[in-house]
């Protein structure tokens, strides 16, 4: 028989090195694993994280791919497993399987303008892409980050965003859906930032991550701005369970999102996203 492959269904055991609270119910976990060399990942990929005794959920990498020993995941407490993950403290064990799925098309972005559009927690899977773009800044044209959040206190990675806003080689625009004073930033949905942004439609590649409705609106707004569906990429959310395309839970039409996604070209999923309950 062939040399047995490593079992993709068995989690490696990692420990929480540190935790960082990002906002209400949102926490970034930094992990340490004894994996040597570390697995590495492509921006946009995800791990399956196990809270032992509770269950397993797919969580995107949110750290810098250039620092493979600093595996970071940003988790929002929305269900039993993610709530258990958010409650973990430094030193606690957790299970890790992955990396799984497709990444953002950064090779395709070389020489082009890139606009990253994040909604809510969608900033987390885009952050590794931004790190990588900034890490090889000269390889790309204009870089723009448009970020919409629910309210001012829901803005994640606040300090990092403030630092990025001072850069001259990156445009950062943020908006919130709802705000009471003293917020002085934009109020309005993230698509309003797209309408205001100026980009060269022929040169631009758009990377979009957020709730599905937000991504559909964003893709439409980008389309209205002249960007072709082939130049728009979305990160889909479905019920990823196994990560290897064998459990069937994450289907969207012909896609097995854990295997063929989560990052997909909008042209490939546009029709499927328009069918309700597909």
């Amino acid at each position, binding site marked *: *028989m062939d040399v*047995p*492959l490593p*079992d*993709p*269904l*068995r*989690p490696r*055991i990692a420990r929480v090195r540190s935790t960082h609270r990002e906002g209400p119910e949102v926490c970034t976990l930094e992990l340490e694993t004894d994996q040597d060399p570390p697995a590495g990942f492509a921006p946009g990929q995800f791990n399956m994280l*196990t809270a*032992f*005794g*509770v*269950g*397993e959920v797919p969580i995107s990498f949110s750290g810098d791919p250039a620092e493979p020993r600093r595996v970071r995941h940003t988790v*929002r407490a*929305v*269900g039993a497993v*993610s709530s258990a993950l958010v409650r973990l403290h430094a030193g606690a*064990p957790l*299970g890790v399987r992955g990396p799984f799925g497709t990444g953002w098309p950064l090779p395709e972005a070389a020489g082009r303008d890139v606009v990253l559009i994040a909604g809510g927690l969608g900033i987390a899977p885009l952050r590794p892409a931004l790190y990588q773009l900034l890490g090889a800044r000269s390889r790309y044209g204009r870089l723009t980050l448009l970020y919409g959040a629910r309210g001012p206190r829901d803005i994640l990675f606040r300090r990092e965003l403030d630092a990025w806003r001072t850069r001259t080689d990156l445009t950062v625009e943020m908006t919130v859906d709802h705000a009471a004073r003293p917020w002085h930033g934009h109020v309005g949905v993230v698509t309003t930032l797209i309408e205001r942004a100026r980009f060269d439609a022929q040169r631009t590649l758009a990377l979009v991550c957020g709730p599905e409705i937000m991504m559909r609106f964003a893709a439409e707004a980008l389309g209205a701005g002249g960007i072709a569906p082939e130049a728009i990429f979305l990160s889909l*959310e*479905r*019920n990823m*369970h*196994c990560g*290897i*395309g*064998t*459990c*069937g*839970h994450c*289907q969207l*039409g*012909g896609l*097995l999102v854990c295997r063929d996604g989560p990052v997909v070209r909008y042209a490939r999923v546009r029709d499927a996203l328009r*069918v*309700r*309950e*597909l």
Partner: protein
Amino acid sequence: MSSQMNSAHVIDVTGFNHLLGWLGERGYRIVGPTVRDGAIAYDDLAGAGDLPRGWTDEQAPGHYRLRRRNDTALFGYAVGAHSYKRFFHPPWEALWHARREPETLQAQDEPSSTQRLALIGVRACEIRAIAIQDRVLLERDPQYRARRAEVFIVAVNCTTPSGTCFCASMQAGPQVSTGFDVVLTELCSADPPVFVVRVATAAGREALTAITHRAATETEMAVAESALRYAAEHMGRQMPGADLAPLLRRNLEHPRWNAVAERCLACGNCTAVCPTCFCTTVEDTSDLSGRALSRSRRWDSCFTAEFSYVHGGSVRPSTRARYRQWMTHKLATWPEQFGTSGCVGCGRCITWCPVGIDITEELAALGADSAA
């Protein structure tokens, strides 16, 4: 391939028993059809006596009964609710367990069975189903791969299709053409029956050599062929011949989905009996102290609300969407994902549906309206 492989031989029931004996001596766990709880079920066989000798089945949408035959045929029935899926991709299995101590946490794989498996009486639809599951799981799932490693298949050409069978229109049967070691065609013109035998592998030839056999006569071969022809012509159902994937893709909002959803109970029977449905879910458990941890995997069904759960709720809250998912996956998106249809035409989903929903009828209805 030697001429002996292509040529036809004949064995009798004694020879068949010797074949089982030969397999048993080689350490094979022998599994095949047997009568249990008023239905054909797959279970361990000690000998030909455990087969459903003299039984046949009566199948229709939502209907299954065993009836006595007026002979002693060993394979005179179609498939029951079981498929061989359960032996390679079991309904439940432990994946790993772990022990949490104050300072450590250690996970261990569950030991996987490596026993050789001999499947007896495997129909063409079952063989196609195994090939389809291989496409989905063999390269990706180590547990499945381990169970598929050493398998001996004694296939049976199906001469008794049921009222819900449609393998002929799925080009999956009734004749077995690949994926077996030995294939039998039962000749019921004799009572007790005899079997026309062909072998396809070295292991199959070795088995045949070890048991009493003789060359098949021209008449016997002709009878076997005509029995297969008869079976192909007497399928209880037929899948419409149109290209199914585009037809389904065009009709994702067809009103027929609403109609079928009014009947469908979303019970998941169709997915449980389907020989190709592969979906699973995992469950984590711990003891009260939180120290003994384990993960298991079990069959899941796209008919449950939890199946498509994303944070906040189900992607497919309606029965309409779940039935559409099941059927379009089977017939339209499966080819996209795995390069093969997900349906073999075994008819189980029709027979075991408590309200008798018929996949061939549903597809015909979509096709009829959209052509108009």
